[in-house]
Every structure is written in structure tokens, then in C-alpha cells.
């Protein structure tokens, strides 16, 4: 009896390592150490890239030990050199890529919200069946279309033009339809009904009620499209033939080869400067919208 009572009573002061506050503090320290360590590993390559890009002409890029941070050389003119490079100025593909990004983002936003609106808020025969097709096409490996799309666009006489690289975006795509539809389904039905009583047609409901509510998912779509077009290598590689029309991704590869072949001195600093130019806009965009983006991925996510 007596022992049971004593056992149940908490000791006046438990050993240090068993106290809750201490255990939580140790846990937090370990977590922060891990987070900082992994965060460093993730950022180091980019930091090295910046260091290399700021090296002057004739300076070694591969130093021993590794220079992870730009401490000595700050040749910011490298970026200008690359943009106006004699043999192949990079401002041109930069402008080309921006042009394609704008068209694609426009196309994706307009077409996918229209289609998703029908799937999310309208009733019509064949809905289940058509949506099943959407899901099915999501699973198809896109690369399979590489040759057949080329056959088609070549037959249309679009080879060598920008058309294959932006026209399809105006015709919606399975992933974006799916994401947008999931999001649009979350609004209450009363919204549509109230608007209809006020005399709105279907397009009016889409335009005035649904679209304004869709800003978060549209941000996600826009950023993913931007990223996809910006980093796309295969499309431009297959469809563009004049160096004039190259996008940044293939221009980088082109630039690397011509820089390697024409100049005997080490041009790694210039190649890294060019690469950084192609990375920075994505990073800026990402940091500008990261809150909506990560929140958007989480909310849009995988519910379905």
C-alpha cells in the first residue's frame, strides 16, 4: 500500500534530462542543426555558381580549396559581357523566352479555368466519362508525344516557328484542369445560384464570381507554367532551327559549346554567368510568390 502511493507521487525534481522543457530544447537544437545542415548543402552549389560567375578573365574557377563564397573577385561586368557576347549575345534568347512565357501563361490561365469551370460547376451528360479521360491523359508519359507531335506540326508547316511552343497552351492540359477543378469545387453552390437569380449567365458567373475567387490556384498555374516554359529544353530543341529564335535553355547549351570551341582560355566563368542569368528570374519569381505557391501546393495538393 505505502509503496504504491509513493510510486504514484511524482518525485520533487526529476533528473535534468527527463524534464519536459529540457527535452524539448534538445529536440529543437537537433532539428535546427539538421535543418541548417541540409539548407547549407542545398544552397552551396548556387553559392559556388555565383562565385564562379564573378571570376575575372584568366582567373581559375577550380580553386584549391574550393571557394564557396564570392570573396575576392567581383567581376559583375561578366553578366553584361554574356548578354552582349559578340558571337552570340544572350539578350536575344532571353527576350524570346519571355515572349513564349507570356503567351503560354495567358493560354494556360484562360483555357484551363474555362474547362475546369465546366467540370467543377456545371452538369452535363458525359461529364464522368470525359473527366476520366482527363485523368487518364495525366498518366501518359509526355515524352511519348515527342515524335508524333513533331510529325503533326511538321505537316502543318510549323517547324522552325514558335507556334508549336505556345499554341497548344491555349487548349488546356490535364494537370492544370485537374488542379483548377479541385480548387473550384470548394466554393459553395449558393454562389452560382445567387448570381443566376441576379441574372448572370454561365459566362457571367465564370467571369464575375468564380474567376476572382481563383487567384490562388491561378498563381500556382502561372508559376508552374512560367517554370515549365523557362526550363523547357526538348521543345525548342526539336522545333527551332535558327539560332536567332533560340530560347534561353538551348541558347545556354549553344553558348557553352561556342564558348568552348572559339576561346582557348577558360570560359567557365562566362558559362556560369550565363547560367546564373537563366536562373535568377526563376528565383526572384519564386521568392516573390513562395507563400502562395507552397500554400497553394498544399491546399490544391493531392486531395482528390
Amino acid at each position, binding site marked *: 500500500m505505502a509503496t504504491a502511493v509513493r510510486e504514484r507521487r511524482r518525485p520533487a525534481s526529476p533528473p535534468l534530462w527527463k524534464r519536459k522543457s529540457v527535452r524539448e530544447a534538445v529536440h*529543437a537544437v537537433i*532539428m535546427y542543426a*539538421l535543418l541548417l545542415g*541540409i*539548407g547549407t548543402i*542545398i*544552397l*552551396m*552549389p*548556387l553559392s*559556388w555558381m555565383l562565385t564562379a560567375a564573378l571570376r575575372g578573365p584568366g582567373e581559375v574557377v*577550380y*580553386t584549391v*580549396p574550393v571557394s564557396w563564397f564570392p570573396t575576392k573577385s567581383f567581376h559583375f561586368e561578366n553578366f553584361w559581357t554574356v548578354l552582349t557576347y559578340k558571337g552570340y549575345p544572350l539578350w536575344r534568347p532571353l527576350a524570346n523566352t519571355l515572349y513564349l512565357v507570356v503567351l503560354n501563361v495567358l493560354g494556360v490561365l484562360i*483555357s484551363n479555368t474555362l*474547362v475546369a*469551370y*465546366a467540370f467543377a460547376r*456545371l*452538369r*452535363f451528360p458525359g461529364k464522368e466519362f470525359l473527366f476520366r*479521360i482527363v485523368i487518364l*491523359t495525366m*498518366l*501518359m*508519359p*509526355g*515524352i*511519348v*508525344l*515527342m*515524335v*508524333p*507531335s*513533331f*510529325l503533326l506540326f511538321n505537316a502543318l508547316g510549323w517547324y522552325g516557328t514558335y507556334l508549336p511552343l505556345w499554341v497548344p497552351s*491555349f*487548349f488546356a492540359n490535364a494537370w492544370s*484542369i485537374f488542379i483548377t477543378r479541385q480548387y473550384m469545387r470548394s466554393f459553395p453552390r449558393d454562389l452560382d445560384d445567387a448570381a443566376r437569380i441576379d441574372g448572370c449567365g*454561365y*459566362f457571367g458567373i465564370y467571369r464575375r464570381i468564380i474567376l476572382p475567387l481563383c487567384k490562388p490556384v491561378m498563381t500556382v498555374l502561372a508559376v508552374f507554367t512560367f517554370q515549365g516554359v523557362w*526550363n523547357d*529544353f526538348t521543345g525548342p530543341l526539336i522545333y527551332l532551327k535558327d539560332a536567332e529564335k533560340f530560347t534561353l535553355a538551348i541558347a545556354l*547549351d549553344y553558348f557553352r*559549346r561556342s564558348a568552348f*570551341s572559339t576561346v582557348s582560355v577558360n570560359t567557365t566563368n562566362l558559362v*556560369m554567368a550565363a547560367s*546564373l542569368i*537563366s*536562373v535568377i528570374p*526563376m*528565383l526572384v519569381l*519564386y*521568392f516573390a510568390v513562395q*507563400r502562395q505557391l*507552397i500554400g497553394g*501546393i*498544399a491546399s490544391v*495538393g*493531392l486531395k482528390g
Partner: protein
Amino acid sequence: MAVAAHRPARRGLTAQERREALAAYLFLSPWLIGFIAFLVVPIAMSLYAAFCDWVLIKPPPRWIGLENFRYMFSQDRYFLWSLGVTLRYMLMSLVPSLVLGLLLALLLNQRLPGMNLFRTVFYVPAVVSGVAVTLLWMNLLNPELGAINQVLRALGVQNPPNWLNSSTWALPAVALMSLWGVGGGAILYLAGLQNIPEQLYEAAEIDGASRWQRFWRITLPLLSPTIFFMLITGLIGSFQVFTPAYIMGGASRWGTSRHLRFYVLHLYLKGFQEGKLGYASALAWVLVIISAILVTIIYTTTEQYVYYEEQGKERS
């Protein structure tokens, strides 16, 4: 109610319903047109092309039956080779990225101040993928003086691998680069983790379940749909590796490195460098069949382990 009961079961759409259906198909038209023009038509064309001798420079395709497939299995020395490269890469990159992604997500799911900053940083590599990153990693992986091998030497590795110049280490090098972007998958896992109701953990804690038990009994089962999704998309994704293969090994000035001749690179070289579009279409179809078989196998073997919470719940 009564009106609905009197309505004929099938054909009869009311005027209102008919208008709604008409509007719906108008809204759907971009996708319907695109689906036919940019998906059904190309797929039909490539199905036909797979049985043809269709060369880019001399247009009229010539029907040759199964000849492309016979050539593929008997004479194309890179067909099986490139398939092997792709499958080996899949094993090297998929499993580590699934596991690491999950671990990172668990780390990022902690409730600590400043976590948003870390989430942002971890996702960065997923944002900047592409040619620039491939060029960056080619520099980092430089065998003599590259940063990675210097770090390895500092850690006491006597003879660090030659990476892209070596036949055994070229593929692991590409896998390593892809692992750098593992934070992208972690964010998706994180979304899944945050959908797990808090009460489950609280209940388990009251019942005296340890951290470890909570992970195996709650987190993992409830996360299984996400894991399954990542497995399938990762599988389909690693069949399609192209850019790093092309940049790092495919068309370098030293010629094509066979150790980085991924399946899709092989397809590209056959179709667009040699101009054999018919043969490349046949290669594409074989890839579709192989990935469909793999996905089906995975689907049937893992289905029993995937837990779907919303069974029988609201379905629109």
C-alpha cells in the same frame, strides 16, 4: 420531387438542363479540340508511323509491318542497352528520393519558429532545374578539381570517383544531381502530412504510443496515397530523363557517351539525328507498353497497402 418522378428516366433533358449542357460543352471546347488535335491525332499518326519506314528527308512513309520491331530487338545494339541505363537510373534515383523526401518532409513538419524559411530554401532546387543546373553540376562533378571531389578528399576518400568520365559513376552522378532537387517532393509529402488530423496523434499519445509507433501506425498509413502518387509519377518521370542525358553525355564534343544513353535520348538520336521517325515512333510505343506494365505491376502489388480515407465519402 413530383416533377422529377414524372420525368422520363433517360432522354428527357429540360430546357434548362439542355442550356446548361450546351454551355458546358462550349466551356469544354478548348480542351476537346486540343485533345483531338494535339493528342488523338498525333497518337494515331505515331501508331501508323511505328509500322512504317518514315524518314524525315524523303517523306512518303512506306508500310513495312513489324520490321521496326524486328530491327529493335535484333539489330539495334542500343535498344536494350538504353533501356538498361534507364532502369538502373530509376533504381538509383527513385528509392533514395522517395525516402529522403519523406524524411525531409517530417523534418519540415516540425512546429518550430522560422520553419517557413527552411521550406522555402528546400524547394529552391526544384524551381531552378534545367540546363543551367546541369551545367553547374558538370562543374561541381569535375573529377580533378571539382568541388564535390575536393570535399570527398577532405573527408578522407582516397580516390574519389571520376563521375561523368567514368563508366560506373556517370549514372550515379546524374542521380546525385536529381537528389539535390528532392525538396520538391518533400513539399508534396508535407501537404500530405498536414492533412493528417491532429486528433489521431493526440489520441495515440494518450494511449501511450511512442514516437516510433505513431510514425508506423498513423503517419505512414495515412501518407500511403501520397507515397503511391510519388512512386508512380517518379517512375514515369525517370523513364523520361532527357535534358541531363543530352547535356552531360548525349551530344558532347566527345561524341555520345553510351553510359548516359538513356532511352529517350536514344529515341531522340534515332528520330531527330538519324531522321528515322518511324523507328523512333516504334521505340516510343515500346516505352509506353513497358511503363504501363510496370505501373500495373506496382498498382496491383501495392494496392492493399494504400489507405484511402475517403472511401464512400462525398463524391461529386
